[in-house]
């Protein structure tokens, strides 16, 4: 196998006395779907923060496509192809769904220091935005205000916005959180459709989704890696059952 797309090497992050990330190493290979699971408080969100650059690890390194991300800011990481969705949707609620996506298209296209021409009338932005919306099944509501969409649609829109950045790696922070059974199935279908096109690091609680999508599963508890391997092995790992599946959280 070639060099992994994303490597996290011996990350450590502590808040006060609490070890949120405890000497964690993690590889995500090009094209694979790698799931990261663990009970609440296992340190998943902290990992996401460090990977996208919102948090600085106390020690350790993150490499993306062979480059040390070091102190790069979140925007700089995105421009290298590392996009993310948010667990709690972070959308521009006053704008339409299409506006939300078009902004990401515009941002990917380079700087936005264009002061004069009407951005909403620019077909280069609008056409691509609409394509991404159709891809995630939001084609019909493209011109609705984000605030007026349902929770499930917000999750889909998050995905469309992330895809508009044309990422090499998509960091999905609990895309199923708060979804009903049918919506979850739809989302799993969407992500399955993306598999192979985009590398994904999937942080998720929903075991059904994880086992349906993941090539590899890594289990965290209290900031430490306790198991990593193909889904079938993880499912039967007594340590994992004990630490995670047994606590009734799933």
């Amino acid at each position, binding site marked *: 196998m070639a060099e992994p797309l994303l490597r996290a090497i011996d990350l450590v992050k502590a808040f006060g006395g609490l070890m949120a990330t405890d000497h964690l190493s993690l590889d995500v290979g090009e094209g694979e779907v790698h799931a990261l699971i663990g009970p609440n408080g296992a340190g998943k969100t902290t990992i996401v923060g460090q990977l996208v650059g919102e948090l600085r690890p106390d020690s350790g390194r993150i490499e993306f496509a062979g480059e040390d991300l070091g102190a790069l*800011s979140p925007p700089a990481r995105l421009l290298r192809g590392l996009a993310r969705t948010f667990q709690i949707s972070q959308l*521009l609620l006053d704008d339409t769904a299409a506006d939300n996506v078009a902004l990401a298209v515009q*941002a990917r296209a380079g700087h*936005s220091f264009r*002061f*004069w021409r009407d951005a909403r009338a620019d077909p280069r932005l609008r056409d691509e935005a609409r394509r991404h919306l159709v891809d995630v099944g939001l084609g019909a509501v493209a011109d609705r205000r984000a605030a007026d969409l349902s929770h499930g649609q917000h999750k889909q829109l998050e995905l469309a916005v992330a895809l508009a950045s044309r990422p090499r790696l998509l960091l999905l922070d609990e895309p199923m959180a708060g979804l009903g059974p049918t919506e979850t199935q739809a989302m799993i279908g969407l992500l399955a459709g993306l598999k192979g096109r985009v590398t994904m690091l999937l942080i998720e609680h929903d075991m059904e989704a994880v086992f349906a999508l993941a090539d590899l599963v890594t289990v965290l508890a209290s900031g430490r890696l306790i198991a990593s391997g193909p889904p079938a092995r993880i499912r039967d790992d007594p340590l994992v059952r004990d630490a995670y599946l047994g606590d009734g959280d799933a």
Partner: protein
Amino acid sequence: MAETRALRALGLIVLVALLALPAVAHFAKDPAWISLVTRMLIYAIAAVSLDLILGYGGLACFGHAAFYGLGGYTVAILFHHARSSEVLWGLIPGSTQFLVTVPAAMLVGGVVAAAIGALSLRTAGVQFLMITLAFAQMLFFLFSSIATYGGNDGMTVRRRNEMPGLDLRDDTVFYYLVLALLLLALWAGRRLVRSRFGMVIGGIRQNERRMAAIGIDTYRYKLAAFVIAGMGGALAGALMVNHARFVSPDMMHWTKSGEFMVMVILGGAASLIGPVLGAVTLVGLEDLLGQIPKWGEHRMFAIGAILVLVVLFGKGGLWGWIARRLSRGGDG
């Protein structure tokens, strides 16, 4: 669609009224209206420029008067040096040409805004509010103590700037010039907020974290918006000094920054018409209430009460209220 038609009609009526104002004022033998409305329109330019960062960008700037005052001082200082034919710092000659002084004022406003913004934008929220206030207060104290330019008493600019082909000393001509500049500013503002840049600024207000996540370095965009707003504030200050023929540190006092904020929020933030309405209303109220015999000197009581009521019950300011009424009328 009845709503937009009603709005268009309203806009047209207001525009015609503004164009006809000098003639009406002269006919009514009440030419003071011209300078009152000129003042409103100049404040409107300042308020619209503040709204770009305050309303559209969500950046609570409490130091806009700094740029307004700098614009004013630029015009006054250039005038002062043109009159005394002393060369400023050995290299800048004075000028009384409107087409020189006003762009110069905007340049100064922009450069200082870039400096203040570069530092202030490292903070956010209330801290940003306070740090912009601090910078404005520093400039206020600085200009209060420069004796050459009148210190706290300020200085008079005995004549308005000149412009080829236009007699700016004529109040009516000056009024039309200010009106034209306001319309220009509104048009430019409209293009700006709808441009790619404007979309980014609006996005930053709604969710800065999201903007960073789609690869936008928000700091640079906020700084650019801050500079544009500073230039707008300086334009207003330059016009005001031409109008009033007087400059003083009062133009930079924190209460003036507060007044601009009041205009924006009273009229309706994150709209272009709102700040204009706010400026007209605030200046008009102060002027008209002040003329009430005896109780006029207590007008701040009424103005304060109106502010409280507008914030508590009038969502979106005056413009929000008007827009709601129009759309309700359109539905029924």
